[in-house]
């Protein structure tokens, strides 16, 4: 919305000051994420800009913290654990969540609202309560300090996201498509894979991405349910910040920011594709 030529001086002032205010809030939102990128190349073991860095002297910059990250075996183990746990947790929550969303979206589904409230609850219950509950219960059934235990816990935390995104995709779903496919002689299985899946796939993938990032970024439950063998990247960062704070954490943080940027890009592409397929927006 550009400023009309007849705007009064007061409106003009407001127009520009409003944009300055918004700019400041955007800086608040995004600044902290980008400020750590240059810091991770610091040659000194500090969390602030050294005079060499300020004068753009190459001496002030180095890749030592990335090298540190790359050669340290405990970080390597954390990376492997993070991906291992997140991938399996995502698979479980995507599968169960998609099935449930399909059921919940049927008009004849009984007790829809209370069931939905229950299935969304892992997202709402404070993490510390979930973590403490899982810690006691999983210890009793022998799942504590195992990869399986952490995977199941993360899968439970990730399912609400899948249920929400897939249900949202199904809101605009045209049920006559199923009848059309069946009247043309397709079996229910064929209908599912040839008609339903292609249409809900964007929702499933973005739900899966949410579930993945939930597990990948989760630290409270891992701290309680897991042990050192299940140490993930967030766990390592958490204990790193609490104990000896080394700029290696900044290098890891930079890598994680890159990962989130690529995830965000994937999601944005998916969203556009989904809107195009459903004819919601032109082009």
């Amino acid at each position, binding site marked *: 919305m550009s400023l009309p030529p007849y705007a009064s001086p007061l*409106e003009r002032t407001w127009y520009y000051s409003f944009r300055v205010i*918004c700019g400041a809030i*955007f800086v*608040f*939102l995004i600044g*902290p*994420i980008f*400020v*750590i990128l240059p810091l991770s190349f610091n040659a000194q073991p500090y*969390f*602030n*800009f050294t005079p060499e860095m300020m004068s753009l002297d190459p001496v002030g910059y180095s890749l030592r913290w990335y090298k540190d990250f790359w050669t340290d075996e405990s970080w390597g183990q954390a990376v492997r654990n993070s991906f291992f746990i997140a991938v399996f947790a995502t698979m479980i929550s995507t599968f*169960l969540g998609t*099935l*449930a969303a*399909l059921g*919940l979206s*049927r008009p*004849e*589904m*009984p007790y*829809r609202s209370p*069931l939905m*409230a229950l*299935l*969304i*609850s892992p997202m*709402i*219950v*404070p*993490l*510390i*309560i*979930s*973590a403490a*509950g899982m810690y006691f*219960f*999983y210890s009793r059934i022998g799942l504590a300090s195992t990869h399986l235990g952490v995977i199941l816990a993360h899968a*439970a935390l990730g*399912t609400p996201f899948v*249920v*929400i995104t897939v249900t*949202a995709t199904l809101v605009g779903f045209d049920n006559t498509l199923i009848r059309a496919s069946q009247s043309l002689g397709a079996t229910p299985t064929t209908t599912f894979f040839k008609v339903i899946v292609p249409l809900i796939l964007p929702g499933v993938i973005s739900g899966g991405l949410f579930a993945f*990032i939930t597990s990948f*970024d989760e*630290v*409270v439950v891992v701290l*309680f349910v897991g042990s050192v063998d299940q140490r993930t990247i*967030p766990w390592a*960062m*958490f204990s790193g*910040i*609490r104990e000896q*704070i080394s700029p290696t954490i900044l290098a890891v*943080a930079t890598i994680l*920011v890159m990962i*989130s940027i690529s*995830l965000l890009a994937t*999601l*944005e592409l998916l969203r556009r594709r989904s809107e195009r397929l459903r004819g919601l927006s032109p082009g």
Partner: protein
Amino acid sequence: MSGGAVSNDLLTTADGTPLKVSLQRALRRSRIRAFLLVAPLLVFIALFFVVPIIDMLYRSVENTIVEKVLPNTVVALESWSPSSDEMPPEVVFAALNKDVVKGFKDKTLGRLARRLNYDKPGMSSLFRKSGRRAKRMKDVDFQGQFLKVDKKWGDITTWALIKRESDPVTASYFLAAVDMRYNENGEMTSQPEERQIYVNLFIRTIAMSAGITLICVILGYPIAYLLSILPMRTSSLLMILVLLPFWTSLLVRTTSWIALLQTQGILNDLMVLVGILSDDGRVQLIHNKIGTFVAMTHILLPFMILPLYSVMKTIPPSYMRAARSMGASPALAFYRVYMPNTIPGVGAGGVLVFILAIGYYITPALVGGQSGTFISNFIADHVSTTLNWGLAAALGVLLLTLVLFMYSLYDKIVGINNMKLG
């Protein structure tokens, strides 16, 4: 309609069943089919999420330890009442000896000692001391021998405590969670001043969450408004600036704030450089309330902007034009026409941010220091450090009740079915 001949008034299907029955049967089948799709997730969530939480919350009233470690004593105490003002009879002391010897051998006595110490300081050492000596006691005058170990065995309040806590269900954890306790006579009283922490902690958690929610509304409103009036292409680009923090790891964002806010950090450096502060006048911005406020506002702001934006997007611009054309000043038109229309968005975002803020653990633990910690941090502390699981569970029940209340409020405002992400 060959087989479905109309023999009477009822419509029937081909095989002769009335149409109504047949329809109902078909409906029931499709209901079951829909339910079967949800069932696997339901079982999964129930087993790995709901049951563990209920199991933990039950610990807030569970109190079987006295009954388990001192079974004979509990039975022998049945006929004794603390209101009689008399010492329990000799049989009770004999039973106590038996239980303590066994408890010492099985190493369960330590847990009992710790448990009773929550209610009455000094109980821990009493039981440990008695545990070591009970085995060598002779089979006569147990009362005298126990009294020789510790005078506290001659104190009626000790016995009143054991009697009271032999009940398998207790309210003492909940009392502790609201800064109360049972006194020597078993009446509820408030804790001494210096031990009252939890009520204040709850108030602080709620007040800070409300404060963070308010700041999020103030900062989120203009951004959501700007995004909703800009042309699609520009607003999509700016939306990325909102979504990127949303997708960035919580720990990354917390780390950034540590780098920015610490005393030797970037913000302080900058202020010294510009000359607002002298080098030794650096301000403490982290490990206190300010740290928690700033970092959590940053983390939760996207949760405010996204629902607000989706509501503002649906408000037709013609409303404002109509108000202006009828002579309202821009400010009045905004206040009387635009703002009331955005209330659902403010409500949805506000409740969501509040729910998320009130249960936060990681960020307050890392940047909150002493004064900026939340109730969650104390729960975590009681679970893993002090091992007072009953108190942790009681605090958890109170926190969860609060959150579920807000959740039902959220359901009323937006409806859980309409929840959207990203």
